[in-house]
């Protein structure tokens, strides 16, 4: 069956479009990542919520200004100090870990305190006496502060170093969480939302639309009334009501409100399109031929009509996928979307405050990842339309 599909004229046209094939591969890549995250847990939810270091660290180990370096250093000093002050130091030391970066086992509590004291003193000097700048007198002090931090929290080695690097490569957000890991986990969220929404909307909408057009009569009237009513409710009203309804209820924390919102609205598009196409197909002679052979109407609908609308279903599915991903961003903002764990929507809406300070890593990462996926889908659906839908311009 797959081989048969690939020999069809449309499929060959699609393959010839290299951009489309590239887009398809990109999407496959995203799906792969999503699958890995979901099934093998290479990035867990906890990892996206756990702190990996100081806040607002820039990605790619960008050079930071002195002020930021000292601020970061202070973070590490506080952590070390707290551990050293604890009576059960050894236990405390074990508990202090930001994933691969642990409190050194080489020093004892007093030595740690001593170093922290030195570091803080240096920081005060820079802060009070010389101000935060990059001049020749300031920099060596800041370097020394950094060195103390490394002494206290040595850089990981080997495989740990790689993982640590991966966590930090795109910086941290306001709570010191790994932007890269959050962004990658969000791929899984986005794919999940997109696939579930697109699948449901297209399957439900298409079957209903095809049945309505094919059987006609009261079924058609009922379906038309149904989708007219649904599309008469303004999207905003629907969302507002749903937000209000689901607020503080038991399902609030899950994705169910999101699915309800999308489910109620997205099915209309495919329904209309497939219904229109079915109206055309059912007059064609090969359908009459099937009737003449004696097949039942239902059989003809399922085996002859719907497969000939499949190309439209694919196109609609990819468009809806995009709609779901972009919609998730807006719904999350409104409080109807993802609640526990990261998503691109959450990352973007949280980034508003940071942008003002010039911190673009969170918004940049989320936007780029989403942009590439959405762009790939746009190209894909365009190419699908070019290949299979003769009317497309």
């Amino acid at each position, binding site marked *: 069956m797959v081989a048969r599909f690939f020999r069809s004229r449309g499929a060959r046209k699609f393959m010839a479009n290299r951009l489309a094939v590239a887009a398809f591969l990109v999407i496959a890549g995203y799906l792969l990542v999503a699958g890995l995250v979901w099934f093998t847990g290479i990035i867990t939810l906890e990892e996206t919520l756990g702190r990996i270091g100081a806040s607002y660290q820039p990605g790619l180990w960008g050079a930071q200004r002195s002020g930021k370096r000292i601020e970061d250093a202070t973070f590490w000093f506080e952590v070390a100090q707290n551990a050293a002050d604890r009576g059960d130091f050894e236990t405390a030391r074990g508990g202090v870990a930001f994933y691969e970066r642990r409190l050194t086992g080489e020093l004892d509590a007093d030595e740690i305190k001593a170093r922290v004291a030195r570091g803080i003193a240096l920081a005060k000097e820079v802060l009070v006496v010389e101000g935060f700048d990059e001049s020749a007198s300031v920099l060596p002090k800041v370097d020394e502060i950094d060195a103390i931090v490394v002494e206290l929290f040595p850089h990981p080695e080997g495989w740990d170093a790689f993982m640590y690097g991966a966590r930090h490569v795109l910086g941290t957000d306001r709570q010191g969480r790994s932007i890269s890991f959050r962004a990658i986990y969000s791929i899984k969220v986005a794919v999940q939302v997109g696939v579930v929404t697109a699948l449901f909307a297209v399957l439900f909408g298409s079957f209903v639309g095809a049945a309505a057009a094919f059987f006609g009569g009261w079924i058609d009237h009922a379906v038309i009334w149904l989708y007219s009513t649904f599309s*008469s409710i303004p999207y905003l009203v629907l969302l507002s009501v749903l937000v209000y309804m689901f607020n503080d209820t038991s399902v609030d924390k899950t994705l169910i409100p999101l699915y309800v919102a999308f489910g109620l609205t997205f099915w209309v598009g495919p329904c209309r399109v497939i219904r229109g196409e079915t109206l055309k197909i059912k007059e064609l002679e090969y359908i009459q031929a099937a009737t003449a052979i004696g097949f039942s109407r239902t059989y003809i609908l399922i085996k002859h009509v719907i497969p000939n609308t499949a190309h439209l279903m694919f196109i609609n599915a990819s468009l809806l996928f995009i709609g779901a991903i972009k919609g998730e*961003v807006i719904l999350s903002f409104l409080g109807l979307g993802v609640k526990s764990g990261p998503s691109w929507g959450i990352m973007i809406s949280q980034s508003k405050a940071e942008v003002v300070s010039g911190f673009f890593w969170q918004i940049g990462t989320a936007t780029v990842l989403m942009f590439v996926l959405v762009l790939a889908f746009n190209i894909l659906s365009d190419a699908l339309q070019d290949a299979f839908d003769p009317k497309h*311009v």
Partner: protein
Amino acid sequence: MWVYILRRILYNIPVYLGILLLVMLALRTKDPVWAFLGKRKSVADHDALEHKLGLDRAFAVQYVLFVGDVVTLSFDQESWGQPGKTANELLGDAIVPSLVITAPALLLSSLISICVGLISSFYRGRTPDRVLVILAVLGMSISFLVYIILGQYFGAFILNDKVGHRIFAVEGYPDSLTPFTWWTYCMLPVAISVIVTMGYDTRFYRAVMVEEGTRDYITTARAKGASKSKIMFVHMLKNAMIPIITRVMITLPFLIGGSILLEMYFGIPGMGRRLILAIRDNDFPVIQAFTAVFAGLYIITNILTDVLYALVDPRVRLS
């Protein structure tokens, strides 16, 4: 013709009533009074508030009364979140700020998109078209929120910094609306709104124009030697009016509520923002009133669309 308009109105009235019914039912799936009061109030407080708003009456009674309110546009219930103001007053306050953003946005984005679509279709397949299409696709792949956040940053924050004085406000709304204050506070959100919708609109208009452009009369015009602009604006545009009008009317409802993000981020006290705040506050009277008004506006635009359609396309009138 008038029969047709009457039919459309008659058809939409039960639809609207049905929507009102659904909305009212949905809003009552959890007790609105408890939702507002929270867990710590007493039953007495609950009953008092419930009675005050008439929520203890039978649903049918509430429904009829509310429909009455809608028709007369008199939402006299006091807002729970903003005591001292009725829902009506909040509504009145919020209309102008919303309009001031949405109307110019609709106008500008339609004009620009139509022109770009025209140009794109006229040069179909050649460089200007390809560039425009690529830009449109790229633009469509970025989230609205990102445009807003970056727009605020670069369009206001940075720009004001570089230029030295305030060209655009980062957020806020002026007390008194003059062309100057409008520019300062509203131009940026409008610009962002236009840029965001341009991707979609341009592609649509382009498709419509291309379809027109393949018609024989265009080939004739070209063969006659008509100038490019004449062909584009006089011939193609006129005949593509039907789908264009439909599209503009379809986007209208989105502008009623679609600027909700802009209002939230730019702090513009329009209808969308008021509704969101009301939801956060569990301000039931306001939520109910505003959703009813939004739904009503939406239905009215539907009817207007049908009417305009009938005006432009005689086939519709006769059906």
